[in-house]
Each structure stands twice: as structure tokens, then as C-alpha cells.
């Protein structure tokens, strides 16, 4: 089983603060995705990164894929209460066709 560990597991911050969530593995992934999941719903794709060192921005969210394609980070600038949710990283190993999910980071942004 390819383990994707996310840190922190829980994060509670004030509105307007910045935060970074990390996703780490000892395995190499051909691509890595970030999802957000609301309670009682399925994960919703935010971004896919495929190239080592790649950086993608989605409004206030910045995603980076590590040079060795083993890790990734999600940085949120000026967090808002609407950012509250469970953030999941998920990776696909080279040659595989199944997505392994990370352990998740539950973010709470307090107004």
C-alpha cells in the first residue's frame, strides 16, 4: 500500500491567515491531485500536478509538486470561512490506474 501522509491532520485558523498543508510519500507518483471534501459529499477535484517542481495557482490556493514527485504542498493565502473542509491529496503511481488518497487535513477557518 502506497502511503500518502498529510500534515497537519487538523488545522484551525482565523480568517485572513495563511496556511500550508503537506502531502508526503516515499513513493514516486506520475501525477498528484488535490481534492476537497465537504461532509456527506464526494471529493471534488481542485488540481492535478504532473511535472516535478510544478506550481499551479487557483485563486488563493497554490499547489506545488515536489521535484522528485514524492511530495506536494497546498498553500492558502488569506483563508476564508468558505475554505473550511477536508483537503485530500491523492496520487497515481506510474503504470497504475488507481488513485491512492492521503490521510487528509481537516481545515477550519474561524470568522
Amino acid at each position, binding site marked *: 500500500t502506497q502511503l500518502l501522509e498529510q500534515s497537519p491532520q487538523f488545522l484551525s485558523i482565523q480568517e485572513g491567515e495563511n496556511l500550508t498543508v503537506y502531502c508526503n510519500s516515499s513513493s514516486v507518483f506520475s501525477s498528484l491531485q488535490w481534492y476537497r471534501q465537504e461532509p456527506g459529499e*464526494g*471529493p471534488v477535484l481542485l488540481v492535478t500536478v504532473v511535472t516535478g517542481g510544478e506550481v499551479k495557482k487557483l485563486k488563493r490556493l497554490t499547489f506545488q509538486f515536489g521535484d522528485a514527485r514524492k511530495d506536494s504542498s497546498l498553500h492558502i493565502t488569506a483563508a476564508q470561512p468558505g475554505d473550511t473542509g477536508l483537503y485530500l491529496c491523492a496520487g497515481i503511481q506510474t503504470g497504475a490506474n488507481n488513485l491512492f488518497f492521503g490521510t487528509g487535513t481537516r481545515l477550519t477557518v474561524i470568522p
Partner: protein
Amino acid sequence: EPEVTQTPSHQVTQMGQEVILRCVPISNHLYFYWYRQILGQKVEFLVSFYNNEISEKSEIFDDQFSVERPDGSNFTLKIRSTKLEDSAMYFCASSESYVTGELFFGEGSRLTVL
């Protein structure tokens, strides 16, 4: 916007009973998946399906589980004889491409085994 739909949204069953969870993937997608999420735990891969056969399956997907695409539209997950530990949210997902693997998930079916 196209979406993956799942039924039922919630099913309660007795231990030992058979359960069928149904999914309608996005129409032009070719790859289909089932995942599960036990309450408070991570999303776990069960099985992937392409070209009318299983592509990959996890250790969780034992002989009690089966999948099929009976009519070219629905994609079903059957649990033959449910156990208490099968209680979870079951998510269906589909993707258009193998290479990027961008999955689109349904809203899930909550299975409660008593």
C-alpha cells in the same frame, strides 16, 4: 454540468444480506472506480474497471465484492454477504483519461450494516 450519480443515498441492511449500490458515470468516461470511506477515516480504493473488466483491485475487494456494468450505463457494486465492518460511504468515480486520471466522484452511498 455532467455529474456522477449514485443510488441509494443511504441504505440500511442486516448483516449477511446482499447489497447492490448503483452508479451512473459521466457518459463519455471510460474508466470507473469504487472507493469507500469508513467514518472518520481515509478514502480507500476498492476497484477500477475499464473495457468491461476489472483493471485493478485492492486487498479490500475480496470475494464478497463484485462489480459489473450490466447495460452500458449503470456501474454497480455488489456486496454478497454484508458484514458490520462494511458500513461506510461508498463513492463511485469515473474518468475520461487513463493518463491524467482526473476522477469525478459521485456524492456517495452510505451503507449501514446492523
